[in-house]
């Protein structure tokens, strides 16, 4: 592969991680990623409890000790956002998760993965045109903001057996990425109609640590009850390099900064001045805890539930990281669902299938960081969703194709009424690694 091709593919992957195009995409660091793989989406969970296969969750390393093969898993998903109040409809899709998991003799498991932490893609236009009367002139002012980018995670995971019935997991999530924001400030005065464009860029890096614990010590008779818990916190504070570029008058209206614009980008004294580089620390401090259960109702049917609470403990001292004045400061997730797992040794065709279904609810708290208006207050967003999923197991090494789908009704205290449709397709290929093969004679 030539160097150019390699970079082109990396670029495509980075681009594909941008989801969004909702107002929420412009809040804080953007929309947080929840269901990163199809199995998790199918049950509507956060991935704590096993949904990929019986006893196994791709997102919880403490469940990996019973994985029979090494897996390479790739998940691709999409979102459709339909706003019933404003009658818009946006569709976006991209890569959701890449993961490699390697079990080691049933005692340990390691994994390397890549997935979005948050993403932004928005193009927002003001619905409020402001008029100013100055010295007999009337200025009509309007505004739009555009943004894209997001934070990705490079994940290193380790699972280990604590006892025969307890397992531990550890996940290090290295956050990196960037986003760009463009504010287009339009002033119309008589026949003059000019855009003033302000560009900003944030570059992120930091590390989160996530600890997992799983146990199947408890049960109801012969029905095994698996319990899991996890805690996520900041290991290395998220560091943000914020670049604020000199705004310019887009004199020729092409949306780019060029020789025709003001101030002219050439000439004496290096006009305009260099971007202002501000280093921000502790602007994002996620803390999350989660509990879940998985009750084996029959040999193949399980009921699961999860409760998790995520909060950003950072001080809301700056709005430099946010496209809008708001940011998500907390959310609570609750789901319950039913899974019929495939049989280990299927006897008929549908026993090779995993069926997943669930309902979930998420409540977000949005903080209004800065406001010039007294009436602007913090508010909440509520997601109420249903999910279904299907997994198809095939091959000797338990390869699997998963489909996940959910429908979310999103409402908030501003009477927003949105229907969000998510889908996810995953393929997981199993194989034996580091095993001596017999030489064919």
């Amino acid at each position, binding site marked *: 592969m030539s160097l150019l091709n390699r970079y082109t593919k990396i670029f*495509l992957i980075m*681009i*594909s991680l*941008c989801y969004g*195009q*909702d*107002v929420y995409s412009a809040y804080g660091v953007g929309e947080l990623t929840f269901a990163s793989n199809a199995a998790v989406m199918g049950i509507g969970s956060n991935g704590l409890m096993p949904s990929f296969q019986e006893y196994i969750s791709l997102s919880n390393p403490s469940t990996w000790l019973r994985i029979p093969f090494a897996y390479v898993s790739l998940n*691709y998903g*999409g979102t459709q956002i339909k*706003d019933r109040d*404003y009658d*818009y*409809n*946006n*569709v*976006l*899709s*991209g*890569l959701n998760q890449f993961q490699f998991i390697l079990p080691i003799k049933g005692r340990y498991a390691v994994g390397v993965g890549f997935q979005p932490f948050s993403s932004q*893609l*928005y*193009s*927002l*236009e*003001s*619905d*409020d045109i402001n008029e*100013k009367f*100055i*010295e007999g002139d009337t*200025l009509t002012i309007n*505004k*739009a*903001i555009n943004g894209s980018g997001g934070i990705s995670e490079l994940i290193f995971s380790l699972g280990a057996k604590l006892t025969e019935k307890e397992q531990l997991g550890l996940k290090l999530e290295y956050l990196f990425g960037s986003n760009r924001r463009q*504010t287009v*400030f339009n*002033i119309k005065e008589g026949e003059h109609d000019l855009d*003033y464009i*302000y560009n*900003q860029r944030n570059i992120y890096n930091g590390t989160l640590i996530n600890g997992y614990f799983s146990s199947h010590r408890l049960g109801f008779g012969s029905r095994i009850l698996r319990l899991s818990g996890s805690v996520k916190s900041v290991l290395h504070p998220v560091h943000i390099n914020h670049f*604020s570029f*000199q*705004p*310019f008058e887009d004199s020729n209206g092409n949306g780019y900064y060029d020789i025709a614009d*003001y*101030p002219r980008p050439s000439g*004496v*004294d290096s*006009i*305009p*001045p260099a971007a*202002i580089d501000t280093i921000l620390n502790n602007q994002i401090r996620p803390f999350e805890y989660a509990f879940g259960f998985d009750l084996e109702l029959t040999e193949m049917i399980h009921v699961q539930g999860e409760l998790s609470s995520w909060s950003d403990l950072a001080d809301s001292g700056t709005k430099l990281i946010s*496209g*809008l*004045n708001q940011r998500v400061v907390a959310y609570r997730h609750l789901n319950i669902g039913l899974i019929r797992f495939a049989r280990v040794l299927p006897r008929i065709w549908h026993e090779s299938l995993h069926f997943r279904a669930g309902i979930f609810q998420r409540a977000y708290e949005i903080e209004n960081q*800065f*406001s*010039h*208006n007294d009436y*602007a207050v913090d508010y909440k967003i509520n997601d109420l969703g249903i999910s279904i999923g299907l997994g198809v197991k095939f091959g000797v090494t338990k390869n699997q194709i998963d489909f996940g789908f959910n429908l979310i009704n999103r409402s908030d205290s501003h009477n927003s009424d949105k229907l969000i449709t998510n889908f996810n397709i995953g393929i997981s290929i199993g194989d034996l690694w580091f095993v001596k093969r017999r030489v064919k004679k």
Partner: protein
Amino acid sequence: MLIFLSCMEDTVTVDLMDDGMYHDTLYVRGITGFTYQTPPQLGNSTLLYFGTDSNGFQNPFAFFRVSSNSITTPVETFASLNDSTIEIDSAKFILTFNEDSITTGMIFDLFYFQEGGDSIFSESESNYLNITEHDLNSTYIGSSRLSQKEPDSLGTTSFPTLSFNVSEILDSFSDTSSENRNLTVMIKPKFELAGVFSFKSSESGFTYAPQIQVFTHDTAFVDSTGDSVVVDTISHTFISTDDLSIIIPPDGIDENPNNISLGRGMTYKAIIQIPDLDSISIPQQAIITQAELSFFYVNDTSQSNFYLQIHPITDTVSIAELQGLLLDDPLVTEPSLIAVNLSNNGRISLNIREYLQLHHFGYIQNQGLKMEVANTVSPFNTYSFYISNLDSLAPKLIIHYVAP
């Protein structure tokens, strides 16, 4: 092989007025100004003047320095015309009147400086204080009456011209061995003129620039029979590259501290200072969208449009050093940033956005602005504006900016 799709079909509509950028306006008062005067200097003017204005401006004579190379092809020099194979038929100095018809008959004299050398005048430095007719030792060459050709067959008229016979000074023009060689002539009215009359200068363009036209023919052309024959007359044009009409302003200096005055003939220039500019609070990355500095006329609300040039002053200014008539302009300035012609409703409005933006970026210091009328403005007009703090008539600066 992976295929990625990202389709944003619709823009989301929200209230963004509290986010991102904002527009604001600043009103700046307390602007001060001071008029100072230097000798008039019309070297870059598009017109040359003769006669006496009703306000007392005198325009006694004008100088012209012609180029040593012709602008016509083949390119000749005065020296190359001295070749024995070239015969000069005639040579004329042409000066074009600025109006399209003659209202009164005028006769002008042309003079040459036989021993003058080639530094008789300077377009940018000569003025009525450092050059006088009597010191120049000029030689009378000839006279010309302002005349106009009859319209051609298409009815097209040409501008009236003065046409002087300068054949007798061509030898001096072509004598490259002479230390005193010069290509300079002077023109002055033979009689006192009833008013001021203007002619086109070299700044008005090649077509009507003052010029010497030399008509020659080549006697060395030999045809196929071996006989010398006379060929058609050839015209060579040597245009004036430097010209200057001397203007003598009437006595008196505008010393009214409540006003500033501007004028080319009086050479009134002004310094404008915005004392509070450094303390004005504009956000660091603000972009100035408008900056209108306005002045009210003292007594005339019907002034026609005129052009101003404003130069940022780069060095500290001492008002004490600007008293009286100065022989040289002491102000050091950046090149002109602005040319304006706004004049309405009894006031002028100057766009000084570039100055303020550069000052805001820290590229220039707020030493003030030098203001003067442009070279296209009549030198006989003087414009006065209120400068002292007279409430609604005081100068003011309105700054519009957009900032993150």
